[in-house]
């Protein structure tokens, strides 16, 4: 088992894509760890690198353009990046499973849902077809699909979006994974269905004791479900905290801006607060802190414009990457104060 109840720790991972137009640094120096049985959320806007981080953990970065250029991914005491492809295949879908955003496109339309789940079970467990089929029916029942005996022989197109996402979840948890990576699992669904699916994930987590890496752009979902949160901006993590602290007192100006720009029920305002500008293009990142052109402090500050702040611990378990966050000190400054 991992140390200190940690199931997965990602250490200084950088993933780059070598394109014709230059190197896109999709993930830069990202570190975080997920505790046993907890939900860790990775939140950020589109293109910030959260999905690439997930794919890096699964080692599903498509070469030759994409490459994990540095770092370590320690899962259950082993560095996944040292494993041979065959060993990795043993972990993928077995100990680490993943569900995707689009329940429409991530199921194969020409096989029944039963066949697809049976395939996953038999790939990783020594079970006969009949046993695996029975397990599949039970899994479908567990994820709340009504009439599973009949539904198991249906094709994906015969099901609604919510049902398909349930099938995906059934497939993902069929081998009792220790870690479930959920990449925007409810973005394509309506709110009432989203609530049902998130409840289901909670229930399964309670039963199996698995950890969940929840990737989302929806801060509301994070506030409701996650134990810990990392906020990503332009390929880097800018803030990590327990979610109750993050929403109470966000430290990074980007997190603050995001929370302020959300319209909230019951709070009437004439205008919404905004973050000026747009997310930078990964081929042409600004110098210094990547948020400085949009930051109320950083856009006129020399240090922010020239030197990028690293992610540092500022107080009890909270990390932030901003020169102006309270308690943020460089190694040099720390030495001086001691």
């Amino acid at each position, binding site marked *: 088992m991992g140390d200190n109840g940690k199931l997965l720790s990602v250490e200084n991972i950088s993933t780059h894509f070598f394109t014709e137009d230059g190197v896109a640094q999709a993930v830069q120096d990202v570190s975080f760890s997920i505790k046993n049985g907890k939900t860790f959320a990775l939140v950020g*806007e*589109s293109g910030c690198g959260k999905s690439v981080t997930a794919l890096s953990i699964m080692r599903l970065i498509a070469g030759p353009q994409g490459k994990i250029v540095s770092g370590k991914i320690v899962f259950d005491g082993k560095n996944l990046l040292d494993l041979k492809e065959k060993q990795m295949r043993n972990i993928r879908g077995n100990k680490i499973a993943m569900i995707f955003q689009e329940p429409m496109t991530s199921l194969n339309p020409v096989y029944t849902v039963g066949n697809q789940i049976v395939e996953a079970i038999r790939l990783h467990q020594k079970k006969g077809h009949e046993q695996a089929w029975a397990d599949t029916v039970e899994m479908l029942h567990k994820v709340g699909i009504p009439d599973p005996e009949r539904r198991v022989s249906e094709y994906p197109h015969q099901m*609604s979006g*919510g*049902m398909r996402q349930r099938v995906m979840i059934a497939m993902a948890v069929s081998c009792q994974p220790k870690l479930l990576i959920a990449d925007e699992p409810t973005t394509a669904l*309506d*709110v*009432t*269905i*989203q*609530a*049902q699916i*998130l*409840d289901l994930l909670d229930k399964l987590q309670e039963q199996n004791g698995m950890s969940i890496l929840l990737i989302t*752009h*929806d*801060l*509301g*979902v994070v*506030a*409701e*479900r996650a134990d810990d949160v990392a906020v990503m901006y332009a390929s880097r993590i800018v803030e990590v905290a327990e*979610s*109750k602290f993050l*929403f109470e007192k966000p430290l990074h100006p980007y997190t603050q*801006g*995001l*929370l302020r*720009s*959300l*319209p*909230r*029920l*019951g709070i*009437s*305002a*004439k*205008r*919404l*607060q*905004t*973050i000026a500008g*747009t*997310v930078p293009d990964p081929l042409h990142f600004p110098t210094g802190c990547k948020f400085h052109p949009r930051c109320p402090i950083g856009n006129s500050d020399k240090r922010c414009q020239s030197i990028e702040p690293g992610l540092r611990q500022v107080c009890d378990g909270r990390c932030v990457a901003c020169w102006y966050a309270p308690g943020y000190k460089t190694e040099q400054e720390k030495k001086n104060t001691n």
Partner: protein
Amino acid sequence: MANTNSYLLKVDDLKTWFPVRKGLMRKTVGYVKAVNGVSFAIKGGETLGLVGESGCGKTTVARSIVRLVPATAGEVIFEGTDVLSADKKRLRQIRKDISIIFQDPYGSLNPRMTVGDIIGEPLKVQKGIRGSELDQQVAMLLSKVGLAPEYINRYPHEFSGGQRQRIGVARALALRPKLVICDEPVSALDVSIQSQILNLLKDLQDEFGLTYLFIAHDLAVVEFFCDVVAVMYMGRIVEQADSQELYHNPLHPYTKALMSAIPEVDPKLRGKRQRLSGEVPSIMNPPPGCPFHPRCPLAEKVCEAVEQKLEEINGKRHLVACWKSREH
């Protein structure tokens, strides 16, 4: 605006049914009642929000109003004329006054046209403006939506999602419409961009006195943006009220559940919510009686038998279609 107190658009008992055809002779075997008796009215300069989950018919309402899909029955009165029975010539005029902003900023801009062509097309077609005057007007529109006029010769792929949506807004405003139908204008955008576009739409409303029909699935966005909100479920409006009243005093069990399902950005509120069981029934064979009864926590025998009409309950412009919520 001159007549802020009168209704600019009045939709009365609008029905849009799509026939379901089967067999060799393509016989009509039934109807998908996408919009089934929807009525509402928007005052000049106001914003009416239409909310509901996917498939509830909100987009079909929008399309029926401008006759992009033929309505089956009902009336759409825009500035005193019935849009649904207007002849070609009149319809063309009406379409000058009603424009649409679409959801998908990627799919709704022709990738082979420059920004200038896209924004200028309605001006060319409807007003016959050409040459330097056209360029001037397009440049003016671009700056109104916060884009540099130099972008006029660029193509849509050179822009981010938020910028594209600004182009869509500029196109919708080109003919100085009175009514703008916004069909999920921000749901494809990131949070930080979403707030920029919502503010832009508010500013433009103040500047040009626009009236909006705002369609969205996100109640928080609608509550912020709209004066009046109508909640749709399976082709019908189940509740309608001023947005503050609706938020503070939701009456229909569906509205309550919808509000409760929205994840709040406050971890303290965790686990305090009401869940809806089941899914939206197929619109091909809707349940009898109140369409919401199979999922409703309050449903009784009478709900299965009789469908409720939308009726005003407390004299505060608050309309609801539910027995139970009228009891107290």
